[in-house]
């Protein structure tokens, strides 16, 4: 699937995720400004953020957007560094796997908090 997708489609996703991430990170920063920096990092406040589902959902979306954008950027850099069919296939599939791994790991935190495991 990774190799079959047109590069223009991938780049549309790349630009779209960048714009989406900028907008949502701006909201995230504004939310953080409602309290002091030290206060926002307190354990109970962090847990409360994750338990507030609309905010946790937004954090999840930021995670997905930044993971897609970041790993596609990494894929592009690696493709420009070296060429070859096997290498390029490994880079493409490797980046998709790493992206999914990061999203799964980040989502795990939100899920565990909401299941009362943290």
């Amino acid at each position, binding site marked *: 699937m990774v190799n079959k997708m*047109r*590069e*223009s489609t*991938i*780049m549309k996703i790349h*630009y779209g995720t960048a714009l989406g991430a900028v907008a949502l990170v701006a909201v995230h920063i504004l939310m953080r400004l409602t309290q002091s920096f030290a206060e926002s990092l307190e354990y109970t406040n962090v847990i409360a953020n994750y338990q507030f589902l609309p905010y946790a959902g937004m954090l999840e979306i930021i995670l997905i957007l930044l993971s897609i954008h970041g790993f596609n950027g990494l894929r*592009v850099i690696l*493709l420009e*560094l070296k*060429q070859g069919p096997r290498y390029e296939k490994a880079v493409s599939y490797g980046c998709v796997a790493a992206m999914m791994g990061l999203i799964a790991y980040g989502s795990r935190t939100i899920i565990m908090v909401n299941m009362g495991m943290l």
Partner: protein
Amino acid sequence: MTQVPSIAEEKPTTSLSSPKTATLRIARFNPEKDSERKFMEFNIPYQRWTTVLEAILEVKKHFDHSVAVRYSCRQATCGSCGMIINGKPRLACFTKISELESDVVTVEPMNNFPIIRDLAVRFERLFESHHKIKPYLINDDSEISSNEKEFLQTPEEVEQYIQFSNCIKCGLCNSACPTMATDSSFVGPQALAQAYRYVADSRDKGKDSRLKIIDESHGIWRCHFAGSCSQVCPKGVDPAMGIQFLRGYLLGFRS
């Protein structure tokens, strides 16, 4: 009866620029024999109008005939004599020594091209990429076979692509491109500019097939818009702009 001076007769007041001397440093490298590039220096007299190509040919004529250089038309039309002159890709026949404002002129083969010998480089990659983008009008109708058909274009339609048809395939844009330096599969600014030249032509019907060719992992999206291709073009072509216009088609901003 007054005597009319002949045209060839020079007035005594005509000032001639005094000949100066420049040091011409020529990169010498034979991939079959040499392990590294060496520079040979020659002192060359030059006038205000002397080009770098003329200086190289002076070296070949009087000092060392073995210097390898490709040239033909000497008037910036054939695109043969592209090389790095004082660090910048230029046509040797289109660059006057006096314009360089330096008494030392260093000539090297173009970057991002395999060297045959000295200043001569291989153009296979450039021509392959150029050929790949179908550099011709694709249209089932023909002006030749049908006596009724004539592909008329308005001045505005011609304006869309005319500067891109000035490309002489000299390879200076590819030599200046930073992506070409690292990505050996990148299609390059020359081919992309030519893809735009035909996509933007109102007589052409091959837009979709060309866009498909350049829309791959080493195609148009690997351009970082450094703009150096447009900076060095001796014919005033702006490949960077053509690339952005092509992206407009692919992103749906242009149709």
